[in-house]
């Protein structure tokens, strides 16, 4: 009986030094999530036993509280970064308090996936970090512009 895809991937990640948690997403045992931690960040891999060529790697970031309360919030920044990192999807969740970054990866077999694994994960991390930086930059430049406009309107400048 061939090894389950989730078991092969979990063994690979454990072999790379990381503890993993595998959870089944359906009673049919066809969809599973493999969670592990690296560089202080949790990542999860979604795998399907019925479609063993598709894998999704995801990680979540907190949206700064002060930003999630503003109109427009984080959405604009996420759209910008999606263009810069093709293949990465961003989704706001939990009422805009977090965003999830995901890369969907197609590979003919598990070996091909694991061979590219850390490179793909690095790209996902870069995209996520870039989105966080963009949110902060955008907010800071907007705050600076607001301040300038307010002072200009008062005639201080």
């Amino acid at each position: 009986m061939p090894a389950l895809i989730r078991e092969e991937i979990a063994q690979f990640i454990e072999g790379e030094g990381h503890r993993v948690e595998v959870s089944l997403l359906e009673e049919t045992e066809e969809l599973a999530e493999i969670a592990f931690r690296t560089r202080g960040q949790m990542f999860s891999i979604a795998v399907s036993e019925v479609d063993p060529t598709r894998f999704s790697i995801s990680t979540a970031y907190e949206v700064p509280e002060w930003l999630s309360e503003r109109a427009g919030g984080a959405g604009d920044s996420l759209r910008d970064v999606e263009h810069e990192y093709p293949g990465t999807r961003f989704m706001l969740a939990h009422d805009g308090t977090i965003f999830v970054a995901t890369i969907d990866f197609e590979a003919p077999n598990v070996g091909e996936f694991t061979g590219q694994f850390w490179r793909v994960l690095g790209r996902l991390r870069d995209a996520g970090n870039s989105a966080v930086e963009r949110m902060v930059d955008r907010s800071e430049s907007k705050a600076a512009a607001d301040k300038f406009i307010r002072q200009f309107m008062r005639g201080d400048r």
Partner: protein
Amino acid sequence: MTQGADHLAPLETAIEDEGLIFSRDDDDEALRITFKSEGDRYFIVGYRDDPNFVMIGSGWSLPAGVLLGEAAEIANSLNVRKKFVKTAVWEEERDALFTVELCVTSAEEIRPHFGRLLDVLRDTAAEFFAELREE
């Protein structure tokens, strides 16, 4: 601290906090922890007769064809500007070693900074090999 006590125990917890798996390899003189992160191997060493000293590091083989003088020059430039990490070229073995050496009252002091120290070890090794490729 009592000589002979396991003064690296707090670092086992730090490794677990990072979600990593470790193994121990102690002997009469030294305490050693080895672990991997993203497939790269790291070690922690302490000495039973010097419980204030802790070394965290990683070692890499130099690719064939690399000139040791060039490697040492890059190591030297990294040592000038990098915080925490010492880069050394072990000429006889043709290895590059990246270590953080600390003097602590207790390894518990390292625990909250462990992730940062791993990051600088990883980044320094990456920079070293990137510069080596450019030479």
